[in-house]
């Protein structure tokens, strides 16, 4: 029990530290919300003084002249109570929760799905190539994917765009989450459009993420295959397929699981570069926009979400270890 309590206490302290950083780091960025706003509206020929914009922003709850510690106290309170305020950037006045609510499904859908897919695919390939060590699959697939996983996201993205999305009638679209002009709804046209728009960004994540899973799974497989119980299973004449998945694969899979939990935690931050290159209106893209327009409330809420997601996943992982590993229990 002490182990669990200690973990919970650690969770709370880490969260507080992260939230403190989340408050101060955006405020240390160069630039200010009124400058960003001024820059943006000057496009239409509207000349508004920074002082006036500050008055406007004050209406939306932005008050930089207030004591910073007081602001910090209010910030902590509002973060905990869920009153995240309204955007003071590009979507001036829109509640932060609405903005995030709009973007979250797209990121969860795109990045979440492709992370799960990458994990599943990587585990499968790793299992097979570990089983047939030195075979054709083992000789070709892992090296190829290890190379691709070392490539940066944006490079893969740009290569994919130039292969599939260039010219007048591109095979696949390179922007946005669905065809502009479609009304979101549960109909074939819309769903098809969403899938088409998701292929390239998802492909980018898949190509760069799958290599890591293949490598670790393959190596785990090799270690497990040397275990006595696998030899025993063979001696008993159990079918190969069953040994591969039920005996070796199942045990090799366990260490990978905790890594997977961690990477799920990072899904929420979106893959900023992927969403940026493909203009995919998820959290990553929103992150970028919020930074550019020095949108403190939105930045704070996004940071909080990312922190929470990672910490909760780590916590769950700890609990899982507690349940699965007797040593963790006795040590505590």
């Amino acid at each position, binding site marked *: 029990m002490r182990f669990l309590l200690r973990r919970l206490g650690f969770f709370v302290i880490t969260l507080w530290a992260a939230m403190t950083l989340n408050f101060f780091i955006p405020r240390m960025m160069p630039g200010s919300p009124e400058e960003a706003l001024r820059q943006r*509206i000057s496009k239409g020929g509207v*000349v508004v003084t920074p002082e006036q914009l500050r008055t406007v922003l004050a209406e939306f709850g932005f008050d930089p002249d207030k004591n910073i510690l007081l602001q910090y106290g209010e910030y902590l309170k509002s973060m905990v109570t869920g009153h995240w305020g309204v955007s003071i950037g590009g979507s001036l006045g*829109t509640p932060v929760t609405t903005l995030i609510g709009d973007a979250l499904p797209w990121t969860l859908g795109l990045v979440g799905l492709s992370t799960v897919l990458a994990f599943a695919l990587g585990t499968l390939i790793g299992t097979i190539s570990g089983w047939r060590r030195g075979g054709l699959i083992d000789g070709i697939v892992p090296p190829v994917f290890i190379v691709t996983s070392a490539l940066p996201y944006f490079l893969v993205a740009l290569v994919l765009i130039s292969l599939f999305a260039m010219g007048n009638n591109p095979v696949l679209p390179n922007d946005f989450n669905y065809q502009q002009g479609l009304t979101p709804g549960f109909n074939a046209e819309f769903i098809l459009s969403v899938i088409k728009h998701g292929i390239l960004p998802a492909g980018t994540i898949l190509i760069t993420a799958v290599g890591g899973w293949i490598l670790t799974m393959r190596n785990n497989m090799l270690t497990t295959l040397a275990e006595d119980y696998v030899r025993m299973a063979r001696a008993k004449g159990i079918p190969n397929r069953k040994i591969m998945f039920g005996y070796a694969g199942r045990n090799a899979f366990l260490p990978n699981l905790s890594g997977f939990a961690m990477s799920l935690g990072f899904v929420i931050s979106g893959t900023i570069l992927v969403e940026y290159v493909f203009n995919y209106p998820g959290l990553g893209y929103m992150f970028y926009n919020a930074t550019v327009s020095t949108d403190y409330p939105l930045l704070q809420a996004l940071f909080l979400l990312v922190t929470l997601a990672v910490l909760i996943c780590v916590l769950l992982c700890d609990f899982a270890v507690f349940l699965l590993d007797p040593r963790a229990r006795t040590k505590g």
Partner: protein
Amino acid sequence: MRAIKHVAVTVVAVCVLAAGCGGGDKPIGSATSSNPQASTSTSGGGGAYKKGGTVTIANVGGQTWPCQFNPFNPAVNQVALGFVYEPLTFVNVLKAGATTPMLASAFTWSPTKDSIVFTIRSGVKWSDGKPFSADDVVYTFNLMKQQPALDLYSLWTGAGLTSVTAAGDKVTLKFKAAAEPYFFNFANQVGIVPKHIWSTGEAASKPATWANPKPVGTGAFTVQSCTSNNISYVANGSYWQPGKPYLEKVQYPAYLDNNPANLDLASGKAQWGGQYIPNIDNFYKSKSPENNYWFPPTANVAIYPNLDPSHKATSTLAVRQAIAYALDREQISKIGESGYQPAANQTGVVTPTFDKYFDKAALTAAGYDKPNPDKAKQLLESAGYSSSNPLKLDIITITGYTDWDASLAVVKQQLAAVGIELSIQDLQQQSFNQKLFTGDYDLAYYSQSGGPTPYYELRQLLYSKNSAPIGQQASSNYVRYNNPAVDKAFDAYASADDATQVKLIKEIGAAMIKDVPLIPTTESVDWYQYNTKDIEGWPTQDNPYAQPAPYNIPDVGQVLTNLYSKSAQK
């Protein structure tokens, strides 16, 4: 990709084209006018058109729509003003500030120009059927007094507005001093809102932050539906201009990036663009004979030298003169801006838009009409620089503004030829702003918005009250120019008559030549593309009845009431 988007953002607004300047159009302040159609729809022959058709706008906002239509919220008024809300009087920057009566059918200045009487148009209805009256106008202006956050143009604080009162159909605005330069703001940029809506509920308690999802206005269009991806406007059936608008619908999709917007413009899927399109002839114009573009110049893009004595080189007049003489602006325009932005001149008066104010003789007399590298070299020598002691300068610019980078590459070459080593520092937007505003730079490359006469841009750039000591944020005079004679000219402008105003601007232009507080290179333009396959009635170079880009407010309202569909005429 992203880089290009930022380019469009740099583009400022306001003004242009020789065609209208100095012609028979009424300049600001010369009182009343009568029929709105007379000055607006000349392109189509002035006749009425049958209703129908849809126009789709492609203008990158970089984010999805928040579906808010509060005309006082500077982040969203671009989709509210002109579409739903209308000003008292439209001021056409492209025709030297010619006025078109909108919600006010006429106006009269007092002789000292410190008070103005608007005659409010009768027979106008709000889109919910309630009648519009002088009360609404008074309410709108007084609301801005009660809520300083709504007063975007600081009318009550900066412009000296003291009272707004109604008597019958007349509304009187009184000012502390001559207020003619603010006419552009209070008559043209303030959208009038309905009292019966804004005096109740959330609109009354929090007018600045109110989302206003279903706006009620007097404009030609109303919001039919809004999703984060698209706004649909539909024609206002009870619009006060008879027969207008001709179009049935306006679609305004949210484009996050230039790429899809430019593709949709090229394919004709969107017909009205406010986009920077690289290599536009090839990418856009060649795709269809019906694809057209026009880039009216609006303001200056300039090298900002830091005039504070703590910056020794740039505060030396000879150095600034040397730079101004060394530049071949035609070349910068041609190579750096692909010719889309024309070359600027040292007087700071944008031509041909403001030719009336442009003193070509003074420019030629000073030798700034063409590049003069020899003179530049002499000046540098006189300032103590030589090949053994070369002048090294840093210039800051904004990363992602690719056309500016190209321009600066040309500038660098031209300056190298006279012995100045220029190094270009691409800074991220926020860092750039910080340095520029607080005066932490030697040279900066930048551009600001203009107005219906050169006064507006030059006042921002050069008026000493817009400056601040180094280390503090200046509001717009970032070069820290301080010349009492120039200040006096700006002060005198407000109450001056038309001829004196021209004279004053020329005086300021002369100071630009003498002191070189700023070195203009090219003229920033409005990006504007239009497709004539089905839609006609566009503003063109020959008929510049409004600033043409969809991001120009409230000009967008003028364009929308003049567009018509060819297929609907059959």
